[in-house]
């Protein structure tokens, strides 16, 4: 008993001939169907190349078009010829010209001999598949498809649409439950001949002629009627990408293909010299009885699909520039924005760096330059500290910074004196954790030695900017994690507030706070605010400060505040 190979060939004839010869010389009968669209001389040449082999036959030629009946018709005639001409054949293995055997023919033969009654054909009901192209599954069987999907896409789509709207549906022949599955199968003589010699075959053929992609459903459906034992999987390793186009194997897949232990793989790139050289040699190793295990290849291809459909979050490049809302993450990781903290605490940056182990930058969006951690002039990814380059696209600056430091958590300072263009981006980025002590910018003013009228102008200016910024953060489309305290609120309980921020960042410093940054001296700040009011400005972002009185929580002499 033997396995026989039916090959459907339409291009790369040289490679097809090579594979056919390989099987044939190992004593396996072959029937080849060559697409009618292959021109005469090419066909004759191809035939000539295999002329010396007495177990190779050529079946009646059909002009094949993807997705339509002709492929099934071609398969039928080739199979009929196979069953007639080679009586010793027990299993018929359907393959294509771009298939390649990965294991010695003897191993396929042994494998099939151990399972003499089994039909290997992927065959699942339409409810269970999610891989169909164009979203057509059950409708493949109930609509009519007279137009070519590849050449007459518009007509195809419109006609489908029309039938849906008119609720037209074809009747599925009695006793038939539509099944779908890979085109590449291996059936026993019993099952295959039962399908081909079925008294109702004319009826079935007439029905399937107008089903879409019948090569994925004709045998898959009908074998359910006759087979005693169906293994619903294909022995051919054949993977499709998200567009329904088969993945192609190249020389660099050699090891992967070897380790898959699959019997046959498709599609092989016709110029993959090394694959053809390595796999089409006489069996050079002891026979192995391993089960096919394409897991690794599956994983490779599903990763590729993921890359193509979802991409890497936070990446913008020549192949990925998502529309607003489709970024699946505007940046590639979480980061923290602190507003007002360096005004309130004297050594905040160093302190938070110690507590969290993160890179802590100064004001990245300062007007003079970018203040990177450690005062660097260039940062990861060769980001420049030039304010002009940054302001050319603050958004790109931000996404670049976070992308370049993948795996780290960036912290930086922001405030109303900085360039504000990036504000909206920060607010709408889910990865941003923004903590704000509103009105804290008044503390450096309070400590500065400027004329009061100038101070008032600056204060009014900064307050206007921060108010707009806060309004933005309170808008509905804000996605950032935002905490806002007024200065008065914050200093009521600074420890707890700092702890909450640290908890959110994570990292080291998970213990309770034992060391806190030094707070600026606020004695007289209440009076300062009152003076601003007296000058006609209304400082409201700081919250309520009692006049002429230290804030209740304020430590004496600016000593560190300890919590046990």
């Amino acid at each position, binding site marked *: 008993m033997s396995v026989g190979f039916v090959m459907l060939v339409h291009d790369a004839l040289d490679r097809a001939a090579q594979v056919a010869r390989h099987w044939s010389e190992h004593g396996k009968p072959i029937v080849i169907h060559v697409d009618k669209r292959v021109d005469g001389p090419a066909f004759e040449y191809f035939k000539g190349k295999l002329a010396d082999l007495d177990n190779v036959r050529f079946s009646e030629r059909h002009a094949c078009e993807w997705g339509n009946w002709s492929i099934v018709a071609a398969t039928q005639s080739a199979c009929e010829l196979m069953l007639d001409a080679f009586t010793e054949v027990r299993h018929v293995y359907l393959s294509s010209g771009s298939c390649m055997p990965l294991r010695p023919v003897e191993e396929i033969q042994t494998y099939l001999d151990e399972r003499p009654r089994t039909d290997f054909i992927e065959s699942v009901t339409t409810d269970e598949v999610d891989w169909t192209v164009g979203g057509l599954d059950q409708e493949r069987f109930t609509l009519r498809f007279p137009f070519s999907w590849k050449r007459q896409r518009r007509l195809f789509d419109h006609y489908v649409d029309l039938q849906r709207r008119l609720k037209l549906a074809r009747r599925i022949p009695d006793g038939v439950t539509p099944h779908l599955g890979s085109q590449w199968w291996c059936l026993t003589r019993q099952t295959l001949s039962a399908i081909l010699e079925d008294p109702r075959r004319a009826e079935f053929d007439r029905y399937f002629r107008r089903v879409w992609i019948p090569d994925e459903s004709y045998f898959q459906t009908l074998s359910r009627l006759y087979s005693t034992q169906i293994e619903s999987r294909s022995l051919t390793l054949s993977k499709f990408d998200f567009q329904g186009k088969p993945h192609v194997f190249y020389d660099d897949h050699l090891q992967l293909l070897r380790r898959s232990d699959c019997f046959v793989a498709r599609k092989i790139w016709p110029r993959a010299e090394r694959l053809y050289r390595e796999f089409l040699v006489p069996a050079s190793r002891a026979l192995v009885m391993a089960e096919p295990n394409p897991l690794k290849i599956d994983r490779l291809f599903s990763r590729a699909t993921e890359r193509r459909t979802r991409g*890497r979050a936070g990446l*913008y490049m*020549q192949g990925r520039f998502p529309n607003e809302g489709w970024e699946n993450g505007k940046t590639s990781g979480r980061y923290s924005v602190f507003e007002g903290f360096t005004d309130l605490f004297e050594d905040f940056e160093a302190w938070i760096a110690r507590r969290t182990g993160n890179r802590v930058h100064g004001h990245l969006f300062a007007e003079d330059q970018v203040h990177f951690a450690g005062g660097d002039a260039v940062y990861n990814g*060769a980001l420049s500290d030039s304010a002009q380059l940054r302001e050319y696209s603050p958004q790109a600056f931000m996404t670049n910074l976070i992308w370049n430091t993948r795996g780290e958590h960036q912290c930086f300072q922001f405030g109303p004196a900085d360039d504000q263009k990036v504000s909206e981006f920060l607010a709408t980025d889910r990865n941003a954790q923004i903590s704000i002590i509103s009105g804290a910018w008044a503390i450096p003013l309070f400590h500065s030695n400027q004329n009061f009228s100038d101070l008032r102008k600056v204060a009014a200016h900064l307050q206007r900017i921060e108010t707009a910024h806060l309004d933005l953060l309170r808008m509905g489309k804000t996605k950032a994690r935002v905490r806002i305290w007024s200065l008065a609120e914050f200093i009521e309980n600074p420890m707890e507030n700092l702890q909450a921020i640290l908890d959110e960042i994570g990292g080291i410093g998970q213990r309770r706070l034992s060391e806190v940054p030094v707070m600026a001296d606020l004695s007289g700040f209440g009076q300062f605010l009152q003076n601003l009011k007296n000058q006609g400005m209304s400082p409201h972002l700081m919250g309520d400060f009692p006049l002429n009185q230290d804030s209740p929580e304020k430590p004496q002499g600016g000593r560190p505040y300890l919590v046990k």
Partner: protein
Amino acid sequence: MGLLKSYRLRLERKRWRMRAVRKRRQLAPVKNRTDQIAKSDIIVFCTLRNEVVRLPYFLKYYRELGVDHFVFVDNGSDDGTTDYLSAQPDVSVFGTHHSYKRSRFGVDWINWLLRKYGHQHWCLVLDVDEFLVYPFSDTRPIKALTDWLDASSVKSFGTMLLDMYPKGPIDSVKYEAGNDPFEHVHWFDSGNYTIQKNERYGNLWIQGGPRARAFFADKPERAPALNKVPLVRWDRSYAYVSSSHMLLPRGLNLVYDEWGGEKTSGCLLHAKFLDTFTSKSEEELKRKEHFANSHEYKAYHSGLVEDPDLWCKWSEKYINWRQLEILGLMSKGNWA
């Protein structure tokens, strides 16, 4: 896109094509071997002037990738470039002494040659200092890529121009003909690029890298464009609009995904900063045949006199395409 806009773009394309037809008279065949071009050949198109030093490695690199034929426009070389090219078995050379600038920096000439010889071929439009890297380029010839693009019904392939520079002054290592330029000039900036969308043509406009950082920090909007679409399955109705940055019809510029995914894309490694660069920029400054009144060259020239080192401690050393892929400078997309 509205009907009117689409009609305007069609007229514009027609105009560029007419212009190319007119400019064909400026080209005289020096050595025409285009009859050797076979049906599915991949062809390189390139305009150059005095590049005899760079040519041996350029030809070697692309022959090894599997390019079948080269078509050059030689714009008045006097350093032996013409003879060198004419002697190559797979090269066709067209000579011209006309203005590079008035041919829109060679685009008109190239558009004509593409129309004449590139129809229905995969064509690569390059400068002689650009080296294409695509996913798996170390194990798969370029034919594997174009076959895959064909099977995916994709007609154009997007890249970013990646400026490569040496560590230390640009003229510290002497470049000899035939050497791999990236033996010494192998540093690049990995993450300081900005992208905007050009609504008119639909292409991305990418800027940044060492040139923006070192020469254009005070006028970033003038930094050179790094987006390129060098590999196109050509049809005689197509036309490049400006260098290989963008072309018409605008669908060919959509080499990026807008719904979060990544399309397969590559990089053009740019070996601009060899030791020949300093003298070249001086010469180009005098000729005034380059883009925006040689603004770029002015910037380089003054930049180079002051501080010729582009290297910084965050510069990345080039290893292979996989590194570029991990860094997010190119993508495998769904090609596996």
